[in-house]
């Protein structure tokens, strides 16, 4: 068993913390996240309200907790959409070669030509705002990413001796891909998933910021940031906390991704 590097450890810690907070928020938050209390609006951090209250008197800590839940859910589904559709596409491109490969990859190239966030904005603007559409919009631009990564890794793996051996004993191309190639490229995919997860969090916050993500009254980090904007001179902390939450989440998943990549990299072995 190799040692866990500091970046992997920190990334794991932040990720576990965020997932924990999101899970806890399902059962408990200090206050109901949508409960308003106009008398105590725009209060600073205190024992009663750890991170203060927003312009409606809602508890910022509770909103951030509930926001963690919605952000992680959106990112998780979005990445799952990307993996679920992108990986099979990439694997079939790698195994078929020829025109199928060409077709899939050119379509992926085409998809890459559009800036990811812009595509997501366009899709949600067309399909209407909301959590489900945000998941799909972010998921769609994840598909070519995973298709390309899966294809590249599979092409390399196909030439390995164990794959050649499997093919030699008469396994079909599909079985080879599923039972021999996929398990061996799973580390690469896992690293890509954490990176895409971090990007999905930024995309979710961005969509919510422009009003296209999770709809009110359900809290979301991006919208909290937007709402805080005009209050920046009266209650600057309002913008700081959701900003920190987004930064922390992105940092956590990026560290995790970096750490995992180093961890699985054969060249890093036996150091």
């Amino acid at each position, binding site marked *: 068993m190799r040692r866990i590097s500091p970046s992997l450890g920190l990334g794991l810690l932040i990720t576990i913390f965020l997932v924990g907070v999101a899970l806890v928020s399902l059962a408990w938050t200090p206050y109901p996240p949508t409960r*308003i209390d*106009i008398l105590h609006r725009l209060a600073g951090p205190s024992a009663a309200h750890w991170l203060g209250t927003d312009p*409606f*008197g809602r508890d910022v800590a509770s909103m951030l907790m509930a926001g963690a839940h919605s952000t992680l859910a959106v990112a998780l589904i979005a990445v799952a959409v990307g993996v679920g559709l992108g990986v099979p596409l990439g694997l079939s491109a790698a195994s078929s070669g020829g025109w199928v490969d060409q077709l899939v990859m050119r379509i992926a190239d085409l998809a890459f030509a559009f800036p990811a966030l812009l595509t997501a904005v366009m899709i949600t603007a067309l399909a209407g705002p909301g959590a489900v559409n945000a998941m799909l919009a972010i998921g769609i631009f994840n598909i070519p990413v995973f298709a390309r990564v899966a294809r590249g890794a599979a092409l390399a793996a196909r030439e390995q001796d164990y794959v050649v051996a499997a093919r030699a004993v008469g396994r079909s191309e599909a079985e080879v891909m599923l039972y021999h190639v996929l398990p061996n490229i799973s580390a690469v995919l896992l690293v890509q998933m954490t990176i895409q997860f971090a990007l999905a969090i930024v995309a979710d916050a961005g969509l919510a910021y422009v009003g296209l993500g999770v709809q009110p009254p359900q809290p979301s980090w991006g919208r909290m940031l937007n709402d805080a904007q005009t209050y920046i001179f009266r209650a600057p902390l309002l913008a700081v906390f959701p900003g920190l939450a987004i930064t922390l989440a992105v940092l956590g998943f990026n560290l995790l991704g970096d750490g995992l990549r180093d961890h699985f990299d054969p060249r890093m072995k036996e150091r």
Partner: protein
Amino acid sequence: MGRLIVCTLAASLALPFAAGRAAAKDTLTLGMVLEPPGLDPTAGAAAAIREVTYANIYEGLVRIDAQGKVRPALAASWTISPDGLAYTFHLHSGVRFHDGAPFDCSVVKFSYERALSPDSTNAQKGLFEPIAAVACPDATTAVVTLKRPTASFLFDMGWGDAVMLSPASIASDRTNPVGTGPFRFVRWVKGDRVELERFSGYWGQAPKLARVTFRFISDPSAAAAAVMAGDLDAFPNFPAPEVLDRLKADPRFSVVVGTTEGKTILALNNARKPFDDVRVRRALAMAIDRQGLIEGAMSGYGTPIGAHYVPTDPGYIDLVSKYPYNPEAAKKLLAEAGVKPGTTIEIKLPPPVYARRGGELIAAYLEQVGLKADLVPVEWAQWLEGPFRNGDYAATIISHTEPRDLDIFAREKYYFNYKSEAYRSLFAQYQAATDPTKQTELVGALQRQLADDEPVVFLFALAKVGVWNAKLRGMWINSPIPANDVTGVSWAE
């Protein structure tokens, strides 16, 4: 960016010539939250149309001034027959439209008959309904005969809906407005701005400003940033009240808080369940803390109302305490009406901040009485087409900026689907009353009837929070009708 470079270039070219003596500034850039759907106030209900065109591009026979009083406009004077049925307007002579067409009595006849015709697209047909006939004894005299005495007739003819359009231009006024006003339409860059310039052939006193630009910025933080950066000279209806304290402290700006006719309501579709039940509507009125709503959504700028009338209107009575904030009583009333806890109410939210922020607060208030709100943000055009025109909504938050518009609740077809014979008969009596005491009494009865039926939840009257350059003179402080009348605006030396 391109524009910036051009501006800098122009400025540097102009510099040597301007070196002698700096001329007083004669341009104005003014911010608005909503972009108008068109520029013809006789064919659309949106207040934004009037906020660009009223008094600037188009004029009527009479006009409403900054104090809400009726003043002469295209009619220099008028007389009313003793029976209150015949209005004789003496028109200014030599008036021309921006396209060169002459304005005379035939235009008055054309305009009023057009508004009255069965296929009229006028949003306020009711204002013209009392008119029996328009006659033209000569080119500068218009005699309007009414079916019955109508106390509000002169005021009504001062609305943006009663302005004079050049008959040749009516097909294109939506995009290329042609009026008699002191400013001429130059261009409309969709999604960004409308530009006007001084009309050299204006019949009256020429305005001080040579060019006026209306810019449309719906995002409150972008609006605040544009004002603070000096990109805008004025934002007469400023959408970010929470930054006012900072702007007040800044000597570059004047912050002026006035009143409007904007009655902000939670409109309910009375034809849909459960809003057909008066108990549900009353329960909603009790579930919402109006003062809290004003604090939370408008930073305290606004006045609670209890009916479709604002405190500055003649004959206002205070009905705010009719449904005091009481979630427990609201819950009980909802249970009585058979509305199950957890029932979801869809609320459509147009772009203004009172609706978007107010909607979030109202959702939280409804949650306290066991209802769930499904908030659906809509664009302005969608709102006009869906809820307003087709009645396609359950609930929506909207501010009615038309002055003293008690008539909308008496209409046969209106998006509230409020059908009260009692109210309609009271309204007919009010319209026909000529005695001021009787009028005041009836206008009180109308408000009481509304508060009793609560066809919509009356929330608050919008404040007019204006922010403009401290050197700007002549901006309207209050908003007795929707307008950004810049004809009297100038820059201090």
